[in-house]
């Protein structure tokens, strides 16, 4: 395995005292007191139930949302001082069902950001081929298909390939495998965990699935009520003494484990 040399001490994404309120709902913030440092090469899973604020936190990184208070930095630069277009071109984004463009072929979807970045045609084509190989899709068979001609798992693979196409240092993933059947989901989780280790990208991964968090994460950050309530590597996460962690652990325990 040719792992990239990654400097794990460098902080890529930093939240400092961040608060976020939805417009017109300033009384009940969605996120409060978020201070979080993410190092290069980490795969940080944001775990929490629906409405805990994990997707909001993700969208603050690429400035799809702006914080109500506090500061967010990417690669040492406060995001409010960077052109949002430039910022986003350097951050891959994967969402549930992929959010693929239905009027573009698989290859066109993957080549889109390199195209926006003004790469030459040959370089884009080489990159498309490489990305499809990376996510295990045959270029000849799938390159010319439209998203609707793919299965859910294949669409998700294309979503990952598209997000990685311009070689961003940071990858944001919002429940990327949420809409898949359990078997396909487990396959993709394992492949993805392996891929993440090999690529050395900094990854923020949103999920409400504890098993998924354990499988893909190098660190699990748990959100409850818009606050960080736990922050630990998977091996130590279940030992964290917090009611929400116990609630998640209980809900995912197998019946015979629960009896034991």
């Amino acid at each position, binding site marked *: 395995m040719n792992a990239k040399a990654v400097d794990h001490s460098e902080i890529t994404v930093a939240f400092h005292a961040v608060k976020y309120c939805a417009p017109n709902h300033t009384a009940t913030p969605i996120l409060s007191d978020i201070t979080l440092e993410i190092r290069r090469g980490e795969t940080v899973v944001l775990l929490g139930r629906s409405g805990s604020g994990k997707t909001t936190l993700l969208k603050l990184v690429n400035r*799809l949302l702006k914080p109500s208070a506090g500061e967010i930095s990417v690669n040492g630069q406060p995001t409010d001082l960077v052109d949002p277009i430039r910022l986003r071109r350097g951050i891959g984004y994967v969402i549930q069902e992929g*959010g693929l463009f*239905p*009027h573009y072929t698989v290859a066109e979807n993957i080549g889109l950001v390199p195209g926006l970045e003004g790469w030459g045609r040959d370089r884009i084509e080489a990159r498309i081929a490489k990305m499809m190989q990376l996510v295990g899709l045959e270029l000849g068979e799938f390159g010319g298909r439209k998203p609707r001609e793919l299965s859910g798992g294949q669409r998700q693979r294309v979503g990952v390939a598209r997000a990685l196409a311009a070689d961003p240092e940071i990858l944001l993933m919002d429940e990327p495998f949420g809409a898949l059947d359990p078997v396909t989901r487990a396959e993709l989780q394992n492949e993805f965990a392996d891929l993440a280790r090999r690529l050395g990208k900094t990854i923020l991964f949103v999920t409400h699935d504890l098993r998924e968090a354990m499988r893909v994460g190098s660190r699990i950050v748990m959100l409850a009520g818009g606050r960080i309530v736990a922050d630990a590597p998977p091996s130590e996460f279940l030992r964290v003494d917090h009611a929400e962690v116990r609630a998640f652990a209980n809900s995912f325990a197998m019946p015979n484990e629960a009896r034991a």
Partner: protein
Amino acid sequence: MNLLGFFSSHRAEILEATLAHLFLVVVSMAIAIAIGVPLGMILVKRARLRAMALGFASVLQTIPSLALFGFLIPLPLLGGIGTRTATVALVLYALLPILRNTVVGLTNLDPAVLEAAEAMGMTETQVLMRVRFPLGLSVVLAGVRTATVITIGVATIAAAIGAGGLGTFIFRGVAMVNDAVILAGAIPAALLALAADGALGLLERKLKVV
């Protein structure tokens, strides 16, 4: 005089009126599209202006066509008797369906796709041209189709202000109380409308994504 007899004896005249009618419709539609589609694109990101523009276009639509032609006649530059005034009125009528469908087609899209486009670092113009427009094109075209059919019908009334076209036969037939003369205008107009509806419907289905 029976219908077939009138048609065969006035072949050339009917053909000429049909072409004049078609010309009036094509010119009016071209202008309405040139105004309505870009205006709709501009309004995608401007919610308040959008409501105003759609409201204004709706009000125009409620003015009875004969009254609108009448209102336009005394106006300088736009008004007077003839094709120009008729074109202005037809453009105003065609504007609402085109504008409304452009706005709906470009805004009523899968939010996940729009979010992905924004998150990938597309500029607003790129989102508009590469995502919203191609995905909403069939809805825009449906508006053009509706507008075309309306325009073909309303254009018959334009004969009342001397714009020519198939309406000439209809008004003459009404004055003469002669059904054959009325139908010499009404049948070609109906066929034009059906043909335009069919052809544009075909194009619309062809451009539909998903």
